C-alpha cells in the first residue's frame, strides 16, 4: 500500500459519521468491516486495539468540525434545537466535507445543501434558510476585504454615467423573515448564559427558540457590513436596496436608478428626494469602494 492509498483508506474510515454513542461504525456504507480495515492498517498495543486507535482520530475529526459549525451557526441551532442541529450538521458535513484549509469556510455550502435537503429543517424551512444566509453573510463580512473608500456624498461628483464599486465585505440580503432581529435576540440570550470557556471541543450552551415565538413572515432588505472591526445589520428600504443591488451589479447610476425603480415600481420623483441622503449615509458607512 503506497502513501496515497493509505491516506485515502484512513480518511474514508475516519470520516464516516459516528454512532449515537460517539463510536466508530463497524461497517462502511459498502459493507466492508471497519475492524478488518483498521487491523490491516494500524498496529494495536497492549491497551488499545487497532480499531480503538483509529477511532481516536475519527472522534477528533467529528468533534472538531461539529463544534466549528455549531459555533458559526448559533441562530440555526437555536431555531431547530440542539439535537436536530447535530443531525443536520452530520448529514451536511458527511455530504460536503471541508474543501478549505481553514475551518472558517466549513459552512460555505450550507445554504445550497439545505435547499436540497429541507427535511432537516421541516416546518421552519424558509426561516431556517434565511437564518443560514444571514449567518454566512456575517462570517463573510467579519473578515472580508475592505478596499479604499470612495466618498459618494458630494452630488457634484456624480453623474448618470458614474459607476460604483461596493465594498467586498458588504452583503445585501433580501429576506422573507426578520431573522436579523431573531439572531440578535439569540445572541443576547446566549451571552447571558455563556460561561468563560475557550474549550474548542465543547458545544456552547444553546438557547432554544420556541416554535410559538418564531417570527411571522415579513420582507426585510438587509445590509450586512463591517465598520470599525464590528459587523452590523442595517435594514434598508426596498428602493434603497434595489438601487444598491443594481449599483453592485456594475450598472451606471442612471441605469441603476431605472432598474431599481422598475423593480420597485416607484417613480423617480418619489425617490429623488431620498437619493442625496442615501448616498451620504452609505458613504459615511464606507459601503462604496474606489474602483480597483
Amino acid at each position, binding site marked *: *500500500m*503506497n*502513501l*496515497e492509498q*493509505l*491516506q*485515502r483508506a*484512513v*480518511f474514508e474510515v*475516519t*470520516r464516516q459519521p459516528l454512532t449515537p454513542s460517539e463510536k466508530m461504525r463497524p461497517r462502511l456504507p459498502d459493507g466492508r468491516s471497519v475492524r478488518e480495515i483498521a487491523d*490491516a*492498517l*494500524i*498496529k494495536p*498495543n497492549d*491497551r*488499545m486495539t*487497532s480499531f*480503538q*486507535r*483509529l477511532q*481516536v*482520530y475519527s472522534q*477528533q*475529526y467529528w468533534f*472538531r*468540525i461539529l463544534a*466549528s459549525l455549531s459555533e458559526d451557526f448559533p441562530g440555526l441551532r437555536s431555531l431547530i434545537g440542539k439535537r436536530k442541529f447535530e443531525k443536520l450538521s452530520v448529514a451536511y458535513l458527511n455530504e460536503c*466535507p*471541508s*474543501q*478549505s*484549509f*481553514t*475551518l*472558517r469556510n466549513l459552512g460555505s455550502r450550507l445554504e445550497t445543501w439545505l435547499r436540497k435537503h429541507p427535511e432537516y429543517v421541516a416546518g421552519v424551512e424558509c426561516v431556517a434558510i434565511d437564518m443560514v444566509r444571514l449567518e454566512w453573510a456575517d462570517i463573510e*463580512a*467579519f*473578515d*472580508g*476585504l*475592505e478596499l479604499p473608500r470612495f466618498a459618494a456624498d458630494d452630488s457634484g461628483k456624480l453623474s448618470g454615467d458614474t459607476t460604483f464599486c461596493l465594498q*467586498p*465585505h458588504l452583503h445585501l440580503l433580501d429576506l422573507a423573515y426578520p431573522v436579523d432581529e431573531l439572531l440578535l435576540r439569540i445572541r443576547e440570550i446566549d451571552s447571558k448564559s455563556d460561561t468563560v*470557556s*475557550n*474549550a*474548542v*471541543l465543547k458545544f456552547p450552551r444553546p438557547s432554544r427558540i420556541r416554535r410559538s415565538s418564531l417570527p411571522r413572515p415579513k420582507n426585510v432588505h438587509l445590509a450586512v457590513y*463591517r465598520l470599525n*472591526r464590528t459587523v452590523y445589520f442595517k435594514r434598508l428600504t426596498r428602493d434603497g436596496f434595489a438601487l444598491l443591488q443594481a449599483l453592485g451589479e456594475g450598472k451606471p447610476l442612471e441605469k441603476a436608478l431605472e432598474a431599481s425603480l422598475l423593480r420597485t415600481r416607484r417613480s423617480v420623483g418619489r425617490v429623488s428626494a431620498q437619493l442625496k441622503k442615501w448616498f451620504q449615509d452609505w458613504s459615511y458607512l464606507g459601503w462604496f469602494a474606489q474602483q480597483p
Partner: protein
Amino acid sequence: MPANRFNGNSDYGVGIGLRLPHYQHIFSKKPLVDWFEIISENFMVEGGRPLEVLDQILERYRVVQHGVSMYFGSAEPLNREHLARLKSLVKRTKTPWLTDHLCWGSVDGRYTHDLLPMPYTFEAARKTAQKIREARDFLEVPIAVENVSSYAEFHVSEMTEWEFLNEVVEDADCGILLDVNNIYVSSRNHDFDPFEYLDSVPADRVAQIHIAGHTKYQKLILDTHDHPVIDPVWALYARAIELAGPTATLLEWDDRIPSFDEVHREALKAKRYLPTQLQEAS
C-alpha cells in the same frame, strides 16, 4: 547556540502563543514578551479584525508564524491558494522562520483539520521532503517541521518516528520545531524511550522548541494543550537545551486558557534550564 540558518539566524528567547482571550490584556497592559507565535491560518484572511489586531501586535512585538494545515505529508500536491495567502502573510509579519507539522491531513482536496500521523516509510519521507522544499522555495523563508503527537502507528512503517524525522529534514534540508511534549505523549502512547528519540535528533537543525501540557486518560495521553507543563516534559526540555543549546522556546496553551500572566509565568519557567549566565542576562 540558537541562531542558525533554520531560524533565520535569530536570537529569540521564550515566547507564548497569541490567543484571543489575551488580546485585551496585551493591548492595555503592553506586557514585556520576547515574541508571540501566531497560528498562520487565523490571519490568512482578507481584512477585518484579525488583520487589524495582527498589525497592532506587529507594531510592538516580534512574531513567528506557525501553521496547522500545510500538510507536507499529504500525498496530494501543495495547495497553491494556501501558499499564496501564506506568502502574503509572511511579507506582513516578516517572520524569520515558519513552522508547520510533519503530518498529513488532506485527501483529494478534502480537509480533516487534524494532524494525522505519517506512515514512517521511505516513500513518505521522500514525498514529504519534496513538498517542504517546494514550499520553502515559494515562500522564501526558512521552514522548520514539528513532530506531532500520535495515537496510532501504521504496520507499513519501515523505521522509527525519529528516524523518519531525520530522513525528512536531511532530504529537505530544513529545520526542526522540536515539540518535547509531543515526544513525551507519543512515547507513552507507543511505549518508546523519549530520551532515545531526543538523542537522535540532529541538534544543529533545531530551530525552535515547543513545550505544552496534555491530558492523561486511562488508555492513552491526548495532546490537549490545556494544562501546565509536567516535570517529565521539563526533563526532556532540559535535555533538548543541553543538546541544541539555548533555543527559541514557545509554550502552547490552547484550551481552558488561563490569564495572560499565568500562561506567561508558565512559559518563563523555561529560563531555569538555560545556562546560568543567560538566566542572569534575561
